[in-house]
């Protein structure tokens, strides 16, 4: 039984949850720190291979545990959508249009930075999408994981896993506090299509607008659901070809394949 074999990770998970929730939400000026961040960061420290606290098998089990555990969060998000369905349908066009922001925002912000740092075709893999699991699979299939594009997508994947949730929760907190955007717009922006990043961003926005918590979660949940469902197809048929075209147009480097 797993509870016996991998008792360490489950015990640590329990301790992490208790410690993280004890610390609670902390605000420092514009920055909001959420319990999920302490759980992630402290868990990361415990799992550092040098400390030899967890075996590789333990870590792999924790990694296999995550996607199924994540479904509990998806249920919670889903249950927040139904009661607000009427409100969401009223802003249906906004929900659809904001997806273009999600899908092209990665290219718009990422590619200039990548080219400035003199990245080559790695930039295509790194900037064409938010680079979660399905996006890695698309690049692996088209270019292979050991191609420059494959290195780009894997680098982003690893980096996003390590820093994505933390970064987006800090960023969302700061942008929410600036007061430029309406909480509903921010909520839709939070629907990035990665459940942990969505949760991190939503948590920060809710911390800034506690009175609107329920509606923020509904908007973020609906946007996230759309991003994850349409995302794969959009990435495959639109984002990737567009990114390749833009990259080749700017650099003048045609593909060798």
């Amino acid at each position, binding site marked *: 039984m797993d509870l016996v074999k991998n008792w360490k990770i489950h015990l640590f998970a329990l301790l992490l949850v208790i410690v993280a929730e004890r610390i609670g939400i902390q605000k420092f000026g514009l920055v909001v720190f959420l319990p999920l961040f302490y759980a992630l960061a402290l868990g990361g420290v*415990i799992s550092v291979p040098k400390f030899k606290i967890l075996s590789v098998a333990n870590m792999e089990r924790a990694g296999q545990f995550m996607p199924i555990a994540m479904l509990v969060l998806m249920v919670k998000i889903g249950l927040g959508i139904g009661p607000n369905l009427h409100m969401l349908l009223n802003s249906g066009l906004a929900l659809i249009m904001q997806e273009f922001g999600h899908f092209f925002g990665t290219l718009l912000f990422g590619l200039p930075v990548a080219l400035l740092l003199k990245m080559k075709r790695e930039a295509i893999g790194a900037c064409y999408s938010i680079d979660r699991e399905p996006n890695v699979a698309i690049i692996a299939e088209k270019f292979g994981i050991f191609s420059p594009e494959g290195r780009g997508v894997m680098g982003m994947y690893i980096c996003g896993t390590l820093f994505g949730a933390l970064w987006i929760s800090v960023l969302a907190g700061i942008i929410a506090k600036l007061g430029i955007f309406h909480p509903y717009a921010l909520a839709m922006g939070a629907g990035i299509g990665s459940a942990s990043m969505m949760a991190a961003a939503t948590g920060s926005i809710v911390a800034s607008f506690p009175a609107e918590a329920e509606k923020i979660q509904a908007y973020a949940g609906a946007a996230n659901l759309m991003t994850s469902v349409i995302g794969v197809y959009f990435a495959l048929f639109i984002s990737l070809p567009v990114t390749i075209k833009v990259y080749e147009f700017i650099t003048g480097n045609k593909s060798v394949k």
Partner: protein
Amino acid sequence: MKDTWPDIIFILITTAVLVLVSNIVGYGGSVQRDLVGALLLAVIAAAGIFLAKLPVLNKLPIVFWVSALAVVLSIPGVPGADWIVARTKDINFLATTTPILAYAGLALGKEIEGFKKLSWRIVPICLAVSAGSFICATLMAEIMLHLEGIF
């Protein structure tokens, strides 16, 4: 998915228990009030996974079916929806995230070797890419919500 049903059920129940702990420690919950709600989240997730494994339906990802089932089960007028929403509404949204990120954290160690091999340049690019997705979508939503007269 290669996972077996006993394992899926084990994972979902473990997660539900940790969500309950999280809700009690962080958001003033209690076992009496929240036990049913936490287990309901796990049960709906299990039902969604079951749907996603059926022929034809398995063309779409598990996340889709689990989410779709949860959405339908919370629409006012759907039998049982009022009860489900009432039972689960006291489970704080953040309480469902902490246990999951704890496991994500405990799995991070295996990414460190890969990360060391990367060029430092990927870090600023990574931050720009995710910021771009969030900021551009927020901007589009802000414009569209104005045009639709929501605020």
